[in-house]
């Protein structure tokens, strides 16, 4: 999903920047508010931001397709710090990846953030909330969130490309052509991201459930604390 400079038109780049700003600006306010409410939020944000930087730069080979791709980590980030804050850290992550590694581009930060930081994070967060709302186990809800967030990132990236470049070809057909460039390699990685999201979230909840009250459904949070202290 690291779309490089020179592919999208200037109008498309501006449009995706505007769409991303609609999430990043509230995200900045959310971060400021939560830092005042909770001392642990600031180191938490730093840790999650750096983790997303590493995870989304970690190219893994997939032998069945003969190509490499990377997970995203934004679904996990959205569960831990919220979807709007995830949009903010994704913007920073993609800026540094473009400048340091030549991954992605500067004009396409808006488009890349929209696919990975906003759609990937938000879709994972929605699935997480919905599944936890019906008392789904943490490992399953987190796994589904990781899986959905990963694939949604690439679906949206393919759509961004298709929307700008479909020309005379039907939009949906061009969208699926681009997605088939990502999909076969991304599918096994999405399964890996599901396992990773579950494992990390369970480890955190096992160590410090008190730091993650927003992660558990509220009515269960005190029970977990009492169980740990007993």
């Amino acid at each position: 999903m690291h779309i490089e400079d020179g592919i999208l038109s200037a109008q498309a780049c501006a449009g995706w920047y505007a769409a991303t700003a609609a999430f990043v600006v509230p995200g900045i306010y959310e971060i400021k508010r939560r830092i005042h409410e909770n001392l642990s939020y600031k180191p938490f944000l730093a840790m999650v931001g750096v983790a997303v930087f590493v995870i989304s730069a970690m190219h893994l080979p997939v032998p069945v397709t003969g190509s490499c791709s990377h997970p995203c980590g934004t679904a996990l980030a959205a569960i831990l710090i919220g979807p709007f804050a995830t949009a903010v850290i994704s913007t920073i992550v993609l800026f540094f990846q473009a400048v340091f590694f030549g991954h992605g581009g500067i004009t396409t930060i808006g488009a890349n953030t929209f696919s990975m930081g906003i759609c990937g994070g938000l879709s994972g967060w929605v699935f997480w909330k919905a599944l936890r709302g019906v008392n789904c186990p943490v490992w399953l809800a987190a796994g589904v969130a990781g899986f959905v967030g990963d694939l949604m990132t690439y679906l949206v990236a393919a759509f961004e490309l298709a929307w700008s470049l479909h020309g005379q070809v039907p939009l949906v057909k061009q969208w699926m052509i681009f997605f088939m460039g990502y999909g076969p390699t991304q599918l096994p990685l999405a399964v890996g991201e599901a396992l990773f999201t579950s494992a990390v979230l369970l480890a955190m909840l096992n160590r410090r459930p008190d730091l993650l009250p927003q992660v558990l459904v509220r009515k269960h949070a005190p029970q977990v604390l009492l169980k740990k202290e007993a």
Partner: protein
Amino acid sequence: MNTISTPVPPLGSEGSNPRFFDGFTKVMLTIMIVMELAIFASASYMSHHKLTGTGTDDIVNNLATAKKVNGEHHPFVELPGDSELSAFSVANFFAGVIVGYNWLRLFGSKPQPGAKKDA
């Protein structure tokens, strides 16, 4: 307001017992070795079958560029040869230090029964 717990005790203090292979190190090394073996096995399979192992981002960027009449995609900075490896190594080393530092501060120890809870 949440309090941040004290991380693992400093070396030399009472209760600290530094070992090369404590539980955490063993788990991390095991995960690392399993991942490295999977990468080496996958890469070996790809090499044997003459598969290039190109990143899908690059494949799709090339596909997208082919749709444009005068299109040419380019990264913001082109890192030639091993300089890309250096950039990744430096960034990931410091990223690991930052994640580890904050992980210890937040999750290095379980909360004490008498510790302050939210105000």
